[in-house]
């Protein structure tokens, strides 16, 4: 548990430094600093109301939906069904992007459709269901809803465009094998 302790001591450092900063600020601008503390407190409480739940949701998905499950379903399906599945599986998982890249690479090597993999990566990056709760709280339902729709459409377009460009190139004589470059590097 050394890593945990390190994080905890970092928190202690931030608390000490933050308090010192606020005390100095208070000496200079007493009235404004009280405002700062009030507003920071407001935002802190708002975060506290939703953040623990979001963290638990993420952990729940992480434990109950392992990467093997994603690989199994994303690798097999094509067409509209494949796109829908790529979107659903992309919104579910919660790890950072560097978790998604190896999954994508492995699926491509196994012959999964490039379009679906690109869509999966795009959705994974920007449309995680748990985070949308936070987006609704701090930016409003309308903002979150519109951004979700526009981003979803964009991600599908990006998938289609990349798929088209690279397939065309392959047909033009320049053979492109997934992962070839990575093995050289």
């Amino acid at each position, binding site marked *: 548990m050394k890593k*945990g302790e390190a*994080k*905890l001591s970092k*928190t202690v450092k*931030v608390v000490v430094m*933050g308090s010192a*900063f606020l005390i100095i600020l208070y000496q200079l601008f007493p009235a404004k600093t*009280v*405002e*700062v503390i*009030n*507003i*920071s407190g407001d935002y802190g409480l708002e*975060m506290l109301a939703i*953040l*623990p*739940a*979001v*963290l*638990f*949701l*993420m*952990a*729940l998905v*992480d*434990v*109950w939906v392992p990467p093997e499950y994603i690989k199994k379903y994303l690798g097999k399906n094509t067409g509209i069904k494949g796109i829908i599945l790529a979107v659903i599986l992309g919104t579910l998982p919660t790890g950072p*992007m*560097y978790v998604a*890249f*190896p999954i*994508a*690479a492995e699926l*491509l090597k196994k012959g999964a459709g490039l379009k679906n993999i*690109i869509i999966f990566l*795009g959705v994974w*990056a*920007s449309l995680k269901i*748990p*985070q949308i*709760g936070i*987006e*609704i709280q*701090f*930016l*409003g339902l*309308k*903002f979150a809803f*519109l*951004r979700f729709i*526009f*981003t979803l459409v*964009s*991600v599908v377009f*990006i998938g289609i465009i990349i798929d088209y*460009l*690279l397939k065309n190139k392959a047909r033009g004589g320049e053979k492109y094998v997934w992962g070839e*470059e*990575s093995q050289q*590097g």
Partner: protein
Amino acid sequence: MIAPGRVIKGEKGLEMTVLIVNAITLLLLIFSFRKDKGRTKKVFKMAIKKGLMLLPLLLIIIIIIGVMLVFIPREFIQRYLGGEITLFQMVFVLIAGAIAMIPGIIALPLAGSLVDSGASYVPVAAFITTLTMVGFVTIPVEIQQLGKKITVLRNLLAFVFAVIISLLMGVFM
């Protein structure tokens, strides 16, 4: 006291979000516990660990939000991130989002505080979009895993679509 012009959150619709998210999480946790106690223990461990990891950054951001809303005049944020969209403003937020490595959990409240203090939705949406879709910092990993072509195309197109998404947000918000 509240900074001038700050929109006070906590209207009924937003409280509902908190309620719904918490209720769903609680139900799933109960369900998870009934199905498998060991796994649920792992869920708790993971959630707490992630929470502790985020805590320092979270505290810093909360203080930054407070200081920003009180000390930076609303007119300043309005001038640079509000009102008419300028090319400079868009390029700035798009690149800032692409370079920054802030977890969404923390970036979204920050974005909300910018809107509260006069930023318009277009630059905020642009920032969130490149922040999540374009990853300068993760490009080496992406190249290693997926190759140069996919990586360059994916990030370039994400950048272009970020402009489209944010402009559309401006039209509809």
